[in-house]
């Protein structure tokens, strides 16, 4: 009876041993689930990065669909045309949307009434994909960079590579423009998975 009375509460040792055992159990459970957590984090980060790329491309989608492949109205700038050093993946093309390139589509006799020029490029220092609306002209400059690239909108971050290509490649009269973006996935230093994600989409300008 005494024995039972004395055991009505826990001694410090009981508690310590219990907590240690619980800790061991929890650690074991954590260890068991650790790869799952890591996988969860990696998947989350990769999906987030993939979403970023998609959103950057989506941000360009309508503008590229609505522009034109007419020579001189859409220009892709190679390194020889000045898109080098601080710049990569440079493109300029017209838009018929007013109000800083985001307003309504302007028509003149049913045809697009071009309002401005959009410039998109990757800033190699900041690893950002940037977009600038130039309302003073409806012709992209012949060589990069245009007189001003500010203000700009950041449409992609952690972008480690970007390119625009006219397709069919090498043809004198291309019909579409391919956009390729590579984004760095954060926090993957110890993962064996690729450190970047890549997305390439082809747009056919309709005007």
């Amino acid at each position, binding site marked *: 009876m005494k024995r039972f009375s004395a055991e009505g509460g826990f001694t410090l040792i009981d508690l310590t041993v219990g907590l240690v055992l619980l800790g061991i159990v929890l650690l074991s459970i954590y260890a068991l689930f650790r790869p799952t957590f890591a996988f969860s984090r990696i998947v989350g980060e990769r999906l987030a990065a993939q979403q970023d790329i998609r959103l950057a491309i989506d941000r360009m989608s309508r503008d590229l669909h609505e522009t034109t492949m*007419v020579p001189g109205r859409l220009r892709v700038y190679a390194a020889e045309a000045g898109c080098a050093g601080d710049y990569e993946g440079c493109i300029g093309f017209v838009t018929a949307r007013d109000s800083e390139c985001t307003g309504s589509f302007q028509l003149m006799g*049913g045809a697009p009434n071009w309002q401005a020029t959009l410039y998109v490029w990757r800033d190699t220092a900041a690893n950002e994909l940037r977009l600038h609306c130039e309302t003073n002209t409806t012709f992209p400059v012949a060589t990069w960079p245009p007189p001003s690239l500010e203000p700009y909108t950041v449409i992609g971050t952690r972008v480690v590579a970007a390119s625009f290509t006219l397709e069919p490649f090498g043809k004198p009269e291309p019909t579409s423009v391919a956009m390729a973006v590579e984004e760095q996935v954060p926090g993957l230093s110890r993962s064996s998975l690729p450190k970047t994600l890549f997305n390439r989409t082809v747009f056919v300008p309709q005007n």
Partner: protein
Amino acid sequence: MTAMHQHSRGTPPSRDTGERGQALLALLLAATFVTVIGVSLVGLMHTDMSHATIQYAVSRSYYIAQAGLEEATAHVFEAADPLTDATSAIGVTAPYGGGQYTYWIDAGPATGCSAGLKTLEAVGQVTALGRVIPARVRACAVPGTPFLAALFGVSQVEFQGTSQTYLAPYDVGTPGGGGNLGSFSEINFEGTEVRLNALSEDATTLMTVRDGAFADYALFGFFARPDYNPTPTEDPTPWVLGVFGDILKAQPATGVIPNPCGTAYACVTVGNNITDVPSVADLREANYLQHVYMKRLREATVPQLALDPAFFQHQAEQNTTNSDLNKLAGLAAKTDSHYTYNEFYSVVSQVVMHPGHYLQGTVYVDATLPFSVPANLTLNLGGPAGNLTLAVAGDLVLNGTLVNTHDLTTASGRRTPGIVVLGAPQPASNPTRWCTGGQEYATGSGRLIMCEGSSLVVDGLVYTQDGMVVRPRASVDQVGAMYHNNQNSPDPSFTTRDATVVLRFDPLALSIFGKGMSMLSWQQLH
């Protein structure tokens, strides 16, 4: 057993029983922990999958909307009358690609394009995650016009001497919109002095048209002289090319029309060379045509078009709006507008003698018409904002100044053809000589001949059954389009020599052909 006895008698719980409770607690904690982690993981994955699913649905709905727009286009193409074709306000809905599209033609939400144009709108819808994901696109198009060309010749199109031609847009906004130039056979530039869309290359060039005198670059929407380098070897494709139209190397849908180059599509040649020039850069650089500016050269298969004389004859016979002029001309019993040669000249003389009296509607003349207008006179047949279509069953030869302008504020005014030279049912076997030195021949096959120094101000379509020639110092000021056919003769479809042609292209002028539709613009609403 002792413990059990004690327990059964209401004694405190045994140690073993209490320890089982603590283990259960720990197990519950662990299970809760694992469940929370698991649910979070599933939630994260679910969110990401939802995003991916929605983006996939957005992409699909866009292409389904595009399919709807294509269906709308097909709807107009299949219509007996593309100009009046329309859907109901609720549109046409059909399942497609796992979703559905609805399209409207000039009905429901499909509004917003200019008068006379068709507005096509389509919405594509895809259901994803219990939500409807839509995409909406809209297009403006010219009905009844199977392809867009400001100046088109079935046979050769020739630019000779120091001819100066502008194929400008009619509606001028920001720079751009020049008209296309095309042929089924050959487009020939005789020499390096030919000017085509050469906008104030060295200094501002003023052009005098019916609206007044303008810097030529203003015709294309420029507010200042374009800053470009006209030297092709330094900059073979200056940016300014983008504002002009294309050169269409065309082939009729019915088959190949032979040309001097031996190519399946029409060829572009320079001088006597019969080698096809492949690009604008080659045209300007390798062939030294430094004053020729077009956007690009492209091949296209397009239908061969023709106007039916019976249609215009019937319209003229139904047209009683000129009966007062007929009476003035001594043709009291004549109420319609289908004239013989003598009748027509009697009526035209009344137009000259009675200012304010003009011909209206479709006028059909059963003869070759040689217009010799004195230098001090401008023969305005239709008035300042008329609706005259002059249809000639023979040739039309112009010596002097002839005006036939339309009310361009209305779609019908822009659609109304200006001059239709249909040719005689039986052309003469012996040609008649016209112009200085009798250098132009005509047999009544349907040629429009502008003699030296003559001037034509016209709106709408200028159509000829057997070609048009613009002789030195002549000038054309037109808002509309030109289509020149060929009567299986060796004559070119269009020739301009040492003359000035300002053609402000209005695609509505081609609606008279009543076939198909041509897209002018496309936009994504959301």
